[in-house]
């Protein structure tokens, strides 16, 4: 059409430039509206998650507390099988003197104790005697005097291995491995707990998802095929437990499932169970599964509502029995809903903390309970953070799967 001159807008500028300017203004306006919230979420939420990830690998306590020793150890060969020489001990004496004054040596001992037990008491004992050491004389014999263990090359291997600012130690610990003298190896038999814990968490989550599916499918089917009025009313019965808080529901189940509780009372009254043989429904895995059977009815329901009934009718008119019509025509169409709902329930289940804490007892704990234990009781924050990072990675992968099947934009809250 026009060959050389660009199209001009009413105010004389080229239309393209005018359009770009208006577009840019719109973008800036949109970003200005979003910015306050984005900053807020970044500071109050994303930064904490980043901090947790950071703590799962940070390990600067050794290089901060024993700077000279770390440098001196660089020349020492950890495979030599013999403890280091005088220069290293001299550096250690200087470092420990400062550390004891700042009272940081016990922290160091505790941290190194996670790697090799005995380090904690070693540092405490040495720390007490360091003040009385002769500051010009040979240091190695003085240290060996205080505690013979200083001659053990394993101690020095541990210190050297933790000299770098970052460590994979916590992550290794989280999957039951450790950094042995020959590289990465499995932990001793009696210290391997985490793979079992992960396994148990996943097994329980799968059981929960399965039981939710078995309970939820018939209900979703019923609700999707009833008249709108009735299904709206029944939907309230479904949403009601969904909206009472998880804590309230778990408390209710705990009260009902305990040995002196209503369920056992009823069973005894009906004569099914003898009075002294009440079912141990609580404080074990059964308690966790029963209490957490949640509802995946909503995604199933929304998918089933979109299945046209004409297909089933057509199948029946072609001679299919009710079962065949259901299994070969209806069920395959509901599979996306099953997939989406199951992933959702699974994601929620592996992250649960309250319910296992209340009804799980000792054999029904989840990985989240262990993380909480490390943060509040054992104070091994690095390990707690590493476990949390693994859990987060798992959830994000599953969520990516969910997104592929359903799409994040389709999350509706009714």
């Amino acid at each position, binding site marked *: 059409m026009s060959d050389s001159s660009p199209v001009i807008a009413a105010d004389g500028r080229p239309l393209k430039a005018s359009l770009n300017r208006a577009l840019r203004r719109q973008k800036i306006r*949109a970003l200005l509206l979003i910015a*306050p919230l984005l900053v807020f*979420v970044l500071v109050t939420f994303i930064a904490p*998650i980043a901090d947790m990830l950071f703590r799962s690998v940070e390990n600067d306590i050794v290089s901060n507390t024993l700077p000279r020793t770390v440098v001196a150890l660089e020349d020492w060969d950890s495979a030599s099988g013999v403890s280091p020489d005088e220069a290293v001990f001299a550096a250690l004496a200087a470092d420990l003197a400062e550390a004891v004054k700042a009272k940081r040596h016990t922290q160091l001992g505790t941290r190194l104790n996670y790697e090799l037990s005995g380090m904690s008491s070693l540092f405490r004992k040495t720390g007490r005697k360091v003040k009385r050491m002769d500051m010009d004389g040979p240091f190695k014999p003085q240290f060996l005097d205080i505690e013979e263990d200083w001659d053990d090359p394993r101690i020095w291997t541990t210190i050297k291995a933790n000299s770098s600012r970052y460590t994979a130690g916590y992550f290794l610990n989280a999957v039951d491995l450790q950094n042995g003298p020959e590289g990465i190896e499995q932990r001793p038999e009696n210290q391997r707990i985490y793979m079992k814990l992960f396994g148990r968490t996943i097994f329980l989550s799968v059981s929960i998802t399965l039981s939710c599916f078995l309970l939820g499918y018939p209900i979703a089917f019923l609700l999707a095929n009833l008249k709108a009025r009735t299904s709206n009313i029944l939907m309230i019965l479904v949403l009601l437990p969904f909206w*009472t808080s998880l804590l309230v529901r778990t408390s209710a189940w705990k009260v009902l499932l305990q040995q002196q509780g*209503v369920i056992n009372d009823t069973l005894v009254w009906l004569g099914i169970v003898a009075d002294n043989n009440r079912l141990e429904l609580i404080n074990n895995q059964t308690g966790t599964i029963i209490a957490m059977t949640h509802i995946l009815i909503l995604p199933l329901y929304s998918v089933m509502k979109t299945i046209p009934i004409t297909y089933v009718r057509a199948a029946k008119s072609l001679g299919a029995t009710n079962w065949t019509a259901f299994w070969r025509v209806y069920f395959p169409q509901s599979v996306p809903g099953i997939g989406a709902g199951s992933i959702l329930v699974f994601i929620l289940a592996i992250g649960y903390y309250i319910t296992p804490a209340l009804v799980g007892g000792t054999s029904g704990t989840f990985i989240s309970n262990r993380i*909480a234990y490390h943060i509040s009781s054992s104070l091994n924050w690095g390990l707690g953070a590493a476990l949390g990072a693994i859990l*987060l990675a798992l959830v994000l992968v599953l969520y990516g799967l969910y997104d592929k099947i359903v799409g*994040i934009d389709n999350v509706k*809250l009714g």
Partner: protein
Amino acid sequence: MSKLPPYATTGQRLWHYTFLTLCALIFFFLIFPIIIIPLSFNAQDFFTFTPKMLALDPEGFSTKHYADFFSNADWQNALKNSFKIAPVATIISVSFGTLAAIGLSQSHVPFKGAIMAILISPMIVPLIISAAGMYFFYSRIGLQGTYIGVVLAHAVLGIPFVIITVTATLINIDKSLTQASASMGAGPVRTFFKIQMPLILPGVISGGLFAFITSFDEVVVVLFVGSAGQKTLPWQMFIGMREQISPTILAVATLMVAISIVLLTTLEVLRRRSERLRGMSPG
């Protein structure tokens, strides 16, 4: 579908009624915990139905656990804390969230997908991880164990709900209304308050209710981020459940169920109203 066709065989009839019975049983299972409501009126300090209660003898019932709840200093303190934290957190979520939702529904938002992902993330990440991360980070900046820390934490947890409900409402608003208002000379701020605000109000209120419920019922994050001075009602319940000392817990649980029912009903009414306005449901 629930009506059996007249030519159904006996086998089909049998299955049909079995199916309905099964569904009834499942509904019963879903509602079962509601049974704690009558239990909370137990005159004795037991967690089960006493024979007097089963016989519907009025002597077996009493409201003494409720009286205990309202007079106990620990519980009342927890209740006060809950009501100090939840409304403020809700206001923060709603104000920031509504602004952002409006921004997100403009045309041409750069990096929309990434921004949405970041804003929805508090809903996706397991609570324990959020709680752990907040504990670490807030300790660094001195917010751990303070009132402000808990309020901020709850606000950020409620934000995804506000964003989802308000964007859902915004999508369905006729854009030509804002254009018409602009064409009649109203500035953007005036258009917002007179045209958009009334239309998105149901969405904002829904989001606010979700955020309020989230904060009010939340226990994991407050366990880590709060200190004893911010002990909320769910926290007190959690402690009570682990030690299981008195059936006052049942009374508290009943009250919380009642609050949830009220809020849920309000939400449902709002949702049906907005569906009617959009012309999407048959009455």
